[in-house]
C-alpha cells in the first residue's frame, strides 16, 4: 500500500541534506584525502623507482672478495669491481676514503649475509651498495645457469592458479569471496557514516518541537521509513563519491600504487551467497537503524543519545576481534555466539557467508532472526517515536510509552 506522504518526506530529507555545505565538506573530505594519499604514493614510488634505476646504472668503483666462488670475475669487472686480496685492507681503504665500497660475499650466500662496506651517502643513497652487490650476484648466477627461464623459475617468477571443489562444483576461493564480502563493506560504510545521522535525524523532530505538527499529516511509520530510505539514498551518493577516486586510482595508477591486477572476469559470483549477503545486509540495516531511531525517540538531546551510538558502534566492531577464529574455526563457541547474537550477527554472518563457512541452515536462522527482530525493533521505534517524541524535555521510559500506547 502506498504510504501517505512518503514521497514528500523522502524528497524533503534528501534535498535538504544534499543542499547542506557541511554534508559536501565532510563527504568530499574522504575522496580528497584518498586522492592526496594516492598522489603521495605515486610520487614516492616514482622517485624510488627512478632512484633505484639510477643506482643500478651508476658505475660504482668497488673491491670485493668472494668466498662462495659464484661471482663471475668478468661480470664483476664490467660492474666496476676489483678483486680484493686482503679483506681487512679493503675495509681500511673504505674507511679512509681510498675506496668507494667493498663487498664481502660469504661461502654460503643463501645462508649467510653478504656485507657491503661503503662511505656514508645518507640513508636513501646508501641503498645503492646493497643494490649493486645484489645485481652482481644475480648476474653471476644467471650466467652460471645459462637459461633466463630457469633463472626466473628459480626466483619464483611464475603463477599458480588454484582450482578447488566444494560439493562437487568449483569453489571460488578468494575470487569467490570478494563479491559477497562487498555487502559487509557496504554495511560498515552505511552504519558508520549514516548511523549518527539517523540518530540525530529523529531527535531533530523532538528537539525542534515539530513532532505534533508532523504527526497530524503522516503517521510515524511513514516518517521513519522516509528517513531511512532517504538516508539510504544519501549513503549511495556518499559511496559513489568515495569510490570514484579509488576507481580513478586503480585504472590509471595501479602500477604506481602497487595494486594487484584483478581480472574481474575471473570473479566468481555465487547467486546463493549474493542473495544471503543482500538479505543479511537489509536485515542488519533494519535492526541497527530501528535501534538508533528508538534511542533518538527516548533521549531528550543528541548529547545523551550519542552514548547509545557509541554502544552500537562497539557492537558492530566487536566481531572483528574474533576475525581470525571466524576464518580458521567457524564452529568455535565464540564465533557461534557472534553469529547468532542479533547485534553481532550481521557482521559475523556476512563475513562467514563471504568465506563460504555459513551453512544454509545457519543463514536461514540468522536472516529470520534479523528480519523478525528488526521488524519488532522498528515497531518499537515507531511507538517510542509516537509517544516519546512528544515528551520534549524528558528521557522517556519504556514503561511510560507502553502505558500511553495501551491507553
Amino acid at each position, binding site marked *: 500500500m502506498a504510504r*501517505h*506522504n512518503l514521497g*514528500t*518526506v523522502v524528497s*524533503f530529507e534528501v534535498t*535538504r541534506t544534499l543542499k547542506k555545505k557541511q554534508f559536501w565538506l565532510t563527504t568530499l573530505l574522504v575522496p580528497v584525502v584518498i586522492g592526496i594519499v594516492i598522489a603521495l604514493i605515486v610520487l614516492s614510488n616514482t622517485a624510488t623507482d627512478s632512484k633505484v634505476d639510477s643506482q643500478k646504472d651508476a658505475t660504482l668503483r668497488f673491491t670485493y672478495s668472494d668466498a662462495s666462488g659464484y661471482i663471475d670475475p668478468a661480470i664483476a669487472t664490467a660492474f666496476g669491481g676489483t678483486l680484493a686480496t686482503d679483506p681487512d685492507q679493503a675495509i681500511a681503504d673504505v674507511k679512509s676514503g681510498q675506496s668507494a665500497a667493498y663487498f664481502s660475499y660469504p661461502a654460503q650466500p643463501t645462508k649467510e649475509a653478504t656485507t657491503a662496506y661503503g662511505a656514508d651517502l645518507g640513508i636513501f643513497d646508501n641503498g645503492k651498495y646493497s643494490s649493486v652487490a645484489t645485481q652482481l650476484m644475480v648476474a653471476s648466477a644467471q650466467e652460471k645457469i645459462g637459461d633466463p627461464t630457469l633463472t626466473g623459475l628459480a626466483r619464483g617468477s611464475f603463477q599458480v592458479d588454484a582450482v578447488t571443489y566444494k560439493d562437487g562444483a568449483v569453489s571460488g576461493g578468494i575470487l569467490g569471496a570478494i563479491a559477497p564480502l562487498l555487502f559487509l563493506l557496504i554495511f560498515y560504510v552505511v552504519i558508520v557514516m549514516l548511523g549518527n545521522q539517523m540518530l540525530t535525524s529523529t531527535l*531533530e523532530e523532538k528537539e*525542534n*518541537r*515539530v513532532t*505534533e*505538527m*508532523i*504527526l*497530524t*499529516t*503522516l*503517521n510515524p511509520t*511513514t516518517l521513519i521509513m522516509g528517513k531511512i530510505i532517504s538516508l539510504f539514498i544519501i549513503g549511495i551518493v556518499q559511496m559513489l563519491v568515495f569510490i570514484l577516486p579509488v576507481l580513478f586510482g586503480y585504472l590509471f595508477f595501479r602500477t604506481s600504487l602497487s595494486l594487484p591486477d584483478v581480472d574481474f572476469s575471473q570473479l566468481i559470483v555465487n547467486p546463493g551467497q549474493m542473495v544471503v549477503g543482500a538479505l543479511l545486509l537489509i536485515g542488519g540495516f533494519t535492526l541497527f537503524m530501528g535501534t538508533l531511531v528508538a534511542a533518538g525517540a527516548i533521549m531528550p538531546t543528541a548529547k545523551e543519545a550519542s552514548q547509545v551510538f557509541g554502544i552500537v558502534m562497539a557492537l558492530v566492531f566487536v566481531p572483528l576481534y574474533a576475525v581470525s577464529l571466524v576464518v580458521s574455526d567457524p564452529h568455535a563457541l565464540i564465533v557461534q555466539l557472534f553469529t547468532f547474537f542479533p547485534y553481532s550477527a550481521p557482521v559475523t554472518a556476512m563475513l562467514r557467508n563471504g568465506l563460504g563457512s555459513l551453512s544454509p541452515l545457519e543463514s536461514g536462522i540468522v536472516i529470520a532472526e534479523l528480519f523478525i527482530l528488526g521488524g519488532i525493533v522498528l515497531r518499537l521505534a515507531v511507538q517510542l517515536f*509516537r*509517544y516519546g517524541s*512528544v515528551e*520534549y524535555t524528558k528521557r522517556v521510559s519504556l*514503561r*511510560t510509552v507502553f*502505558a*500511553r*500506547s*495501551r*491507553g
Partner: protein
Amino acid sequence: MASSLLSSLDKPDQQVVPRKDPRQDSEPLVHISNFRMDFGRTTVIRDLSFDINRGETFGFLGSNGSGKTTTIRALLGIYQPTAGLLHINGKPFSPEDGGTLGYLPEERGLYKKESVIDVMTYFGRLKGLSRSAAHAWSLQYLERVALGDKAKLRLDKLSGGQQQKVQLGVTIMNDPELLILDEPTKGFDPVNRKLLMDIIEDQKRAGATVLMVTHQMEEVERLCDRIVLLKNGTVEAYGTVEDVQEQYGGTVVRIRYTGDIPESPHFTVTLRESSYAELTVTGPIDEAVILRELMDAGVTVREFTAGRPSLDDIFVAVYGDQNPGATAGERTGTAGE
C-alpha cells in the same frame, strides 16, 4: 483549496465567502463521547463528552494539568484513548485527513536549520498542496506578515516572534476546516497577538471551526461561541458562555462601599478590597434583599451593580481549590499558567 485563503490574505478586510458544508448543521464536526485516558495507573481523563458544531469557535478550558493537551493529542490520534470515541467528521482522525486540519500545538517549533520557504513548502505539501501552490502561498503569506525578505533565511536566524508568525502560516496554509489552537497566544507579543486574532477571525468568517485552548478569559469571551470547563477528568461546565455563566456562577453583585460587610447566608464574598467587593449570590435571592442586608449592617454603599460573573470569576471559583496560592484579591485577567 488554498485559493480562498490566499484571497483572504490579499484582502484581509474584505468579507470572506464562508465554506459551504454539504452535511447537516446538526452533525457535529468534533464528537467526543465517554473519553477516558489512563497513563498506567494514573487516570488523566475520567469521562469526557462534548461536541463541537461546524463553524463555531469552541473554548476548551481547564487548569494546568487538567488533561486538555492530552485530549487534543488523543483526538488527533497521537495517543490511543483508554476508552471512548473521539471523532472528527464522523470518524477517528487519521493523518490522511491532515489536509483539513490546522493544528498549532502548545509546544511549538519548526525545522530551525532549514530556510523559511523550504519548511513552509514542505508542510504545504504534507497537507496536500502542490509544491508550486505551497511555495506561492507561503511567499504571499510572508509578505502579509512583513517577512517577505526573510523567505530564504534559516528559521533560527529569525526572532522568536517572527518564528511564531511562520508557524502560524504553516497552521493555516491548507485553509483548514478545523483549526485547533492550543494556547495560541502563548509567547506572542501584543502585535502578534492581534495578528493571530485577525487570522482567527478570518478563518471564522471563512467557515472554519475553531477549537481553542487558552487561559486568556477575555479572548474566550470575545471569540468563543461555546465552552467546556474540564475538572478532575470530567466536564465541570459546558454550553454557551452565557449558559455557563448562568449555570455556574448565578448573580454577582459588585459594590463600592465603606464599612464592614456582614456574614450572610444569601451571598459569599468572592473579592474584597478596601472599598470594592464582589459578592456571589447564593440561591434565587433578589438583589434588593442583598442591598437591604448591607445597609442594615451599617455598610455605606456608594455604587451597586448586579450581573453575571465573568469567566475569570468562574475559573477562579472552579479551580481556586487546585491553586491555593491564588486568592480572590489577586486574580487578574489571566488565570492558571
